[in-house]
């Protein structure tokens, strides 16, 4: 088996683009659910880098780490969405512009 004939820079560019989309999703979107989805995108960009460098180095350790990243992503989504449900119950919204209790008295 040989590594895929794609320059590693292109894979890095893909990972960077995914990560930037994730960052912009967290910064620009108002819905907390979509912000959490964007966090998943960022974690996947990191996973992609782990996998591609594992392949270029010929060592599978990067793939092993990506499993732990996946499990952490699952735990993060579970707790994050639970917090979202709790917040929605008291404030009846998931719009971050309306959730200002820590910022000022509403």
């Amino acid at each position, binding site marked *: 088996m040989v590594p895929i004939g794609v320059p590693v820079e292109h894979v890095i560019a893909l990972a960077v683009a995914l990560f930037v989309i994730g960052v912009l999703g967290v910064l620009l979107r108002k819905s907390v659910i979509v912000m959490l989805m964007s966090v998943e995108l960022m974690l996947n960009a990191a996973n992609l880098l782990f996998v591609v460098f594992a392949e270029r180095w010929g060592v599978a350790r990067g793939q092993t780490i990506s499993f732990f990243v*996946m499990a952490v992503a699952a735990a993060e989504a579970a707790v994050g969405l639970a917090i979202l449900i709790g917040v929605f119950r008291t404030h009846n919204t998931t719009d971050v512009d309306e959730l200002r209790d820590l910022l000022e008295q509403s």
Partner: protein
Amino acid sequence: MSESYLPIFILFFVTLGIGGAMLGLAYVLGPRKPSAIKEMPFEFGSPNIGTARERFSVKYYVTAILFLVFDIESVFIYPWAVLFRELGWFGFVEMLVFVAFILVGLVYVLRKGALEWE
């Protein structure tokens, strides 16, 4: 490399083709005589109650969380099962500890009554 995945591609397109052909042929060949009753979404024969956009109970969320956790568990049990003979007793104890921790979570959820239906 991707040539060895050709069967999966074929399976993918055959599945897509059969599904598309079923819907497409039914659309092209089937007679359509729409009426108000026929246009109703089918539930179980009786008139519909509300819409599908109804809010679900939060109780279902705990079920979904448990599914997620056991899904992750299965991800790690699968390579363990493949390597079971090679790892021997070390692997057995290792997985026992792993499952025990997750079992604590399940027992907690059960004791809290989060899975009980009222």
